[in-house]
Every structure is written in structure tokens, then in C-alpha cells.
């Protein structure tokens, strides 16, 4: 038996699960596409949070538990600042704030802990999480705030001639997806082609060797935390405009965890693809698998969305621990 067989089996099972509702006629094509799009939209946001994780893990080997708190903090900052200035200015100031935050974290948390156990650094980011959650509320307040992106929230019907009854699409979701895609594309170019991006990849590979050839580690860390902060800000603004800026936003980070496991901790592509798979997967499971379970086992049903991602991540840990796009160890033998 090939060692990839279990992995291939899982992928096939996922694909079958994806097309089954349509193939068996359990759902109307229009509705199916709507669920699919809804899943992709949620997936884009998971991807953005997971992207922050992957960036920091790649460059500094730190598992940044505080990514979710950064999302909340950034969204709070933008929401409150937007009350006093135009939104674009609030976002710019937000970016400055996240960069400053990155600098502070590097100075006060990472630098003193250099070369400690990964678990020590992980615990430190846990501390940063609680600090940011609390500090954010101290500075910005703890109510639910709104971010108005100035777009219509009314869903529009499209493709009426292709599907019976058409498809309901949220215009805002499309803009969000485009922004996320642009951000990801920009980051990919930055990492591949600029000297700083190349240096960041070098640091990710072997930070001591990178240091020995004159790459300033501390500055690299600030850069990567600032980039992760900006990614968090984008995720926070988009998410906040959909659901309102509130404490539960920091819980998104918990959804990003299965995403990075699925995609691979060190991979930017993995974060994107993993996010989309999880987003689509959990929506599909909720809408189409739920009723089946209810009928077959006489369960109460529902709630699949809450655990689906974790079970999927667990399965991936078993069949492919490095994730879909994770780096394999290159070893000379």
C-alpha cells in the first residue's frame, strides 16, 4: 500500500461529499451554489486569519496565539477611529497602530525570550492574547461597534436565467473576497521577489545562518509581525462589517487553527486553500449532512458547523501531518 493512500482517500471522500448533494438531487442547483458561495466567503476570512498565523510561524517559529486578539484589537481601533474620521483615514491609522504594536511585541516579548523553548514563546503569546483582549476594551470600550464600509448590505439576485429563482449574492462579500485575494497576491509577490521578502524566507529557513550573513533578525521580526497585524486588520474590518465588532471576534482565531493544520503551518498557499476548504466544508456539512443525520439517527441535528473543522483537522493530522502544502524536511542522507 502506498503511503499516500489514506491521504488520497480523504481527499476523494471530501470531493464526493462536495458533489453528492448536487448529484443525488438533494438540492436545487441555485441553492447549492448559494451555499457554496457562502462557504467560500467564510473561508476567505478564515484564510486571512490563518495567513497571519502562517506568516509569523514561518519567520520566527512562534506559534502566535494572539492572532485572534490582534484581529479584535485592529477591528476595535478602526471602528472607534472611524467615528471621528473618514474610514480610509481610520484604516491608515489602524495600520500605524498595528505596526507600533508589532514593534512593542518584538521589543518587550520576543527579544528577551530569544532562543528559549518554543513552548515559552507560545505561553508568551498567550499572555499577549489576554493583554490585547483586555487592553483593547480599556482603550476602545467594550460595546458592540459597527464598521460601515459604505456598501449595500442588500443581497442581489443574479444569474436568474441560469438557475431557477436565481442566486442571492451579497455585494459586500464580493468586495471582501477581492480585497482578500489582492492582499494575498501582494504578499506572495512581496515574499518571492523583494530583497526583504527573500530575507524573510531565509530567516524562516535558518535564522542563525540568516543572522550570520547580515540579516538583522530583530527588524525582520518587526516586519513580519507588522504584516501579520495588517492582515489581522483587514480580516477584522471585513468580519466586523458583517457581524459587528465585538469580543467574539477574537474567537475566530480558534477557527484558524484547523485551517493552518490543514494547509500546513509554514505555507501561505496552505493558509488560503485550507481556509477555503474549511469554509466550504463546514457550510456544506451543516446544510446537507445535517438533515441526513437527523433522518438516519433521529438526532436533534444542527451544530455541525462548530465541530466539522476540528474533525477534519484531526483526520489530516493522521494522514498528512505536514498539511497540504507544508514544507517537507529536506535532509541529506
Amino acid at each position, binding site marked *: 500500500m502506498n503511503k499516500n493512500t489514506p491521504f488520497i482517500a480523504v481527499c476523494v471522500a471530501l470531493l464526493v461529499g462536495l458533489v453528492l448533494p448536487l448529484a443525488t438531487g438533494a438540492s436545487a442547483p441555485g441553492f447549492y451554489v448559494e451555499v457554496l458561495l457562502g462557504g467560500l466567503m467564510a473561508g476567505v476570512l478564515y484564510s486571512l486569519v490563518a495567513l497571519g498565523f502562517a506568516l509569523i510561524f514561518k519567520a520566527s517559529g512562534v506559534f502566535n496565539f494572539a492572532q485572534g486578539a490582534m484581529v479584535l484589537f485592529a477591528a476595535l481601533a478602526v471602528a472607534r477611529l472611524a467615528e471621528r474620521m473618514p474610514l480610509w483615514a481610520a484604516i491608515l491609522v489602524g495600520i500605524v497602530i498595528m505596526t507600533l504594536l508589532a514593534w512593542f511585541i518584538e521589543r518587550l516579548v520576543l527579544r528577551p525570550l530569544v532562543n528559549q523553548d518554543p513552548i515559552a514563546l507560545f505561553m508568551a503569546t498567550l499572555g499577549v492574547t489576554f493583554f490585547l483582549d483586555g487592553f483593547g476594551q480599556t482603550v476602545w470600550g467594550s460595546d458592540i461597534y459597527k464598521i460601515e464600509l459604505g456598501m449595500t448590505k442588500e443581497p442581489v439576485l443574479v444569474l436568474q436565467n441560469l438557475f431557477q429563482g436565481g442566486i442571492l449574492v451579497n455585494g459586500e462579500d464580493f468586495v471582501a473576497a477581492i480585497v482578500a485575494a489582492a492582499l494575498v497576491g501582494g504578499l506572495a509577490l512581496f515574499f518571492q521577489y523583494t530583497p526583504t521578502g527573500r530575507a524573510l524566507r531565509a530567516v524562516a529557513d535558518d535564522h542563525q545562518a540568516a543572522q*550570520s550573513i547580515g540579516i538583522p533578525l530583530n527588524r525582520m521580526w518587526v516586519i513580519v509581525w507588522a504584516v501579520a497585524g495588517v492582515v489581522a486588520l483587514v480580516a477584522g474590518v471585513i468580519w466586523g462589517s458583517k457581524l459587528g465588532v465585538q469580543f467574539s471576534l477574537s474567537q475566530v482565531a480558534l477557527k484558524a487553527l484547523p485551517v493552518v493544520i490543514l494547509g500546513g503551518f509554514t505555507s501561505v498557499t496552505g493558509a488560503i486553500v485550507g481556509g477555503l476548504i474549511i469554509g466550504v466544508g463546514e457550510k456544506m456539512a451543516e446544510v446537507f449532512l445535517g438533515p441526513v443525520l437527523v433522518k438516519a439517527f433521529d438526532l436533534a441535528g444542527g451544530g455541525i458547523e462548530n465541530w466539522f473543522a476540528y474533525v477534519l483537522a484531526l483526520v489530516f493530522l493522521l494522514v498528512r501531518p505536514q498539511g497540504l502544502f507544508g514544507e517537507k524536511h529536506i535532509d541529506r542522507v
Partner: protein
Amino acid sequence: MSATAAIPTLLAVNGIEVIYNHVILVLKSVSLTVREGGIVALLGANGAGKTTTLRAVSNLLKGERGDVTKGYIEYLGKRIDGLTPAELVKRGVVQVMEGRRCFAHLTVEDNLLTGAYTRSRAETSAGLERVYEYFPRLKQRRASLSGYTSGGEQQMTAIGRALMSRPKMILLDEPSMGLAPQLVEEIFEIVQNLNQKEKVSFLLAEQNTNVALKYAGYGYILENGRVVMDGEGRSLAENEDVKEFYLGFSSGGRRSFRDVKSYRRRKRWLS
């Protein structure tokens, strides 16, 4: 010494003591000098302190929880012991670490380009051409991931990468490690070449005493964190003690191993 006194000193290490983890004393007052355009070899067995000395100069000790607790290091007449590795690279001191340490997931060319982080764009492309001139093999392999290249190619990548920062001085740690004898000679030929054509000075740590002394103008022998002997490369190679303990020759020709214990002389130095 008097013959070389006219050549200005590039690097002077003065009585440094290095302690790891606040308790482990590794270097006990090591001093050495590298003159401009010189190749200086640091010789000694495992754990003698060669790598530690290099790391003290390039200030990479922090990562291993080491500290220079006494003594000082001067480069071009100025103290450098407080500078970060990045600042040192900017001033022209770069280290090639033991075991090559190429970025395995980057291509050979990307590896080389990372070395030019401290340099401008124009200098970078000129530097790349220069490295490919010295290492034509790397030009052929420029697009492959360096993790999949051979040991010799990785060593060339590592030296080339250091060269990209336009150094005045390269600290070369165990260039011969894990390489076939023929490749070792090739690497040392390149070192000599760089030394003569590019005027790069080298301080190299090496266990392969034989090759090192063939190419080095001056050598220091370290034992247990002390310099026990130093001298011109040729005179060290002819020294009876060095021959006996490092080069594997004995004064009386071949002997039976049965006699080895009784015949083995004591070293004439204290360590």
C-alpha cells in the same frame, strides 16, 4: 613577526574569555591577530574552542547563550565587541558557519542574493556575476533548491553567499567538513584565489591541519580554550610536536602499535 609588522592589522583578538550559560568556561584568554590580506588558521581538536573564537568575533555567541566576559576584539583599530552581526557584515566581517547552513528551501541563486541584504541593487547584480565567475558550478545549478545540491556545492553556495556582502574578512568555520579530499583541495584553492584576487582576509577554523597549514600563512593551535602554539604556516607544519600530534607523523618512522603507549612523548606545552 618582525617581517610582517609593516602590514597593518585587520583583526586583533585580545585575551578574550568566553563563558557559556554563565558557568561553562570555554575560552581562557585567547589572543590572535589577522593582518590585512592574510589567511590565518585556527587549529585544534573537537571542543578546543575554534568555533567559539569565530563566533566571538562575529558576535553570534548570543544565540548559543555565550558571553565574552573578558578581553576585547578590535577590527581596523576599533572595538567591535558590542556590534550586532548585521553591523559587522556591513563593516566587512562575515562568517560562514560550520556545516554550510544553506537555506534548504531557497534556490541556489536566492541563497546567494540573501547574502547581499546589506548591499545596494547595483552591487548585488555585480556581486552575483563575480560569485558565478569563481564558482561556475553554481551558475549551472542556480535554479535548484540548495537542499538538493551536493555537499561541495553547498559549501560553495555558503562561501559565495558570504562573498555577496563584499567582505574584507571571512570567518570560515570547518570548510572541509564532510567533503571528499579532492573537494577540500578545490575549496581551499578557491579560498586562496579569493585571498589573492579579491584581497579578502580569512580566519579559518579547521580540523584538517594538513590542508589548512598548506594554505595558511599563519596558524594558531588551540587546546582546551587556550592558544598553545602559534607561528608561520610552514614552520608549524615542520614543528615536531605539531607533526606528532596533529599531522600523524612520528620522528622515528613507522612503529609497532604495541609500542605506541611507551613511545608517545608528552607534549612540550601545558594545556
